[in-house]
């Protein structure tokens, strides 16, 4: 039995070329799928912030309004990394892109940054990066964000506890989140009411 060496090399070469082409195409498709999914999340996040800005502009001082916004995440919403954060003019630590203004941002929380400087620093970094955060400037001395949520230790546990946490951050972990906005002459208060028991 004689097998030509040349033929053997040619066959191997063809297989290698086919394999490489397939790998490139598969890699390309993976990148495209990832890009499509993340771009749509980013676009949705932008829409959420536009909507909140519109609501802020629609009310006068000492008025309030309530509305619902959809989470930018389409799947696994309860672990959605997108958050809304706000900093007043008086805040010392805020993203550089806010300059001296107050600003409201919607940002994608990166747990990998969490270890580098803690929670607050991580959120600042996420909001500063324009690929993971979108910010809008406002004219408020103070921005308070309050999160109202319910905690049940386990499903078996009957008692549920209601919590109120005032900070400058709220995660969009409900499919639809209810917000109440109220304006004072110098500040903005944003209340988020979570319907999901945590």
């Amino acid at each position: 039995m004689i097998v030509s060496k040349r033929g053997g090399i040619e066959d191997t070469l063809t297989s290698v070329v086919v394999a490489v082409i397939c790998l490139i195409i598969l890699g390309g498709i993976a990148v495209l799928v990832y890009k499509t999914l993340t771009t749509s999340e980013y676009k949705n996040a932008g829409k959420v912030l536009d909507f909140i800005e519109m609501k802020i502009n629609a009310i006068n001082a000492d008025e309030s309004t309530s509305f619902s916004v959809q989470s930018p995440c389409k799947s696994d919403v309860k672990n959605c990394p997108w958050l809304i954060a706000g900093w007043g003019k008086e805040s010392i630590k805020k993203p550089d892109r806010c300059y001296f203004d107050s600003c409201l941002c919607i940002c994608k929380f990166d747990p990998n940054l969490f270890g580098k400087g803690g929670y607050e620093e991580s959120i600042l970094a996420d909001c500063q990066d324009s690929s993971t955060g979108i910010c809008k400037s406002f004219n408020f001395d103070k921005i308070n964000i309050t999160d109202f949520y319910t905690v049940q230790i386990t499903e078996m546990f009957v008692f549920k506890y209601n919590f109120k946490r005032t900070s400058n951050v709220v995660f969009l972990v409900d499919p639809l989140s209810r917000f109440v906005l109220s304006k004072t002459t110098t500040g903005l208060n944003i209340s988020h009411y979570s319907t999901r028991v945590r």
Partner: protein
Amino acid sequence: MKKRGELTSTQIGMLVIAIMGFLVVLFFILGFDFGGVSEREVCHLSVLTRGTSPEAAQMYIPLKCTTEKICLDDGTGNGCKSSFAGESINKISLDKKDNAVAAQQIDKTSAEAMYGCWQMMGEGKIDLFHSLSQNIALDYAKPVCVICSRIAVDVKDARRLNSIYSLTDLGAYLQNNIAGTDGTKSYLEYFTDGQVSSYAKVENRIVIDNPVIVHGEGFCNETNDTTCDSSAYIPITVSDKDKESAVVFMQIKPKSYGDVLKSWGGIAVGGAGGAFAISPKWTMKGITYSTKFIKNFPILSLIATGVVVGNVVSNVYDGRKVAAGYCGEVTLPGVGSSKIDKDRAKNGCSIVQVVPYDAEAINKLCTSIESSP
């Protein structure tokens, strides 16, 4: 000399062309800018693409569905600014004088939005929200929604608005009007696959508050279905009385034990076959090592298998229990409840309904929303 079973260069060429053709189509679907096509058509196309792709890959094919914003405006308000300011809206002029005509317009708009939504999402015939982890029961089925439309009514005079709302009756509209331009079925028959044409039994139980229209495998065919629970009834409740409502498509399709077993079998056979094709030597080695491990550590192997099997069984059970909860009885604030045959409800359902555009109502119905706002 050609080895037995070896692929010829023609076969390889054909295979590569086929793969590339498939990928070109996929690139087209994922990346093409559908500027000239209506949003509804784009959504329907993405629904079909997802519905016809392998179940394991479904979640990676994005649904390109955007919520349509419909404003019913009598010209006295601010053009639904409080609901949709800054967004592109579809405006419909409400009759300025006749409240009955205005109420009819609201019902018609809601019914048409439901009809469009049901058609766009494949009339409940396409399973859209399966992930690989759900197919092999490492996770249980959850209800996923698409908000097809948001409908806002803008009438400045509150008294007139209340008067209009008191005249709306979406349930009756769906029952008495033909769906589509060339259809023969009423909206209700269309949403329920023609299984129900009369709601005499239901009418007494109508809760004129919010609408719930249910379609699914759990439906009772009241004329000849002996398996149906006699207390089961099809709900028709009306929700065209909110300043802003949403037309929501919800689907939950849990896997049965048989389906899960089939998926595990497919993965085992496919995985082993693939591994053998790539490297027969290493596959055989892997099998030998696995056998050795089982022989040496039988209790540990048994416990590990028990944990996986237990998890799978529990997830299938939970998924079917959740589906029974969502499909057997849909309860929303102010809506009341609707019941369908319990056993069949466990198989899941697709529902199109109109609910208040309110976080509490929608979050109770959906664990996630796949449409873009």
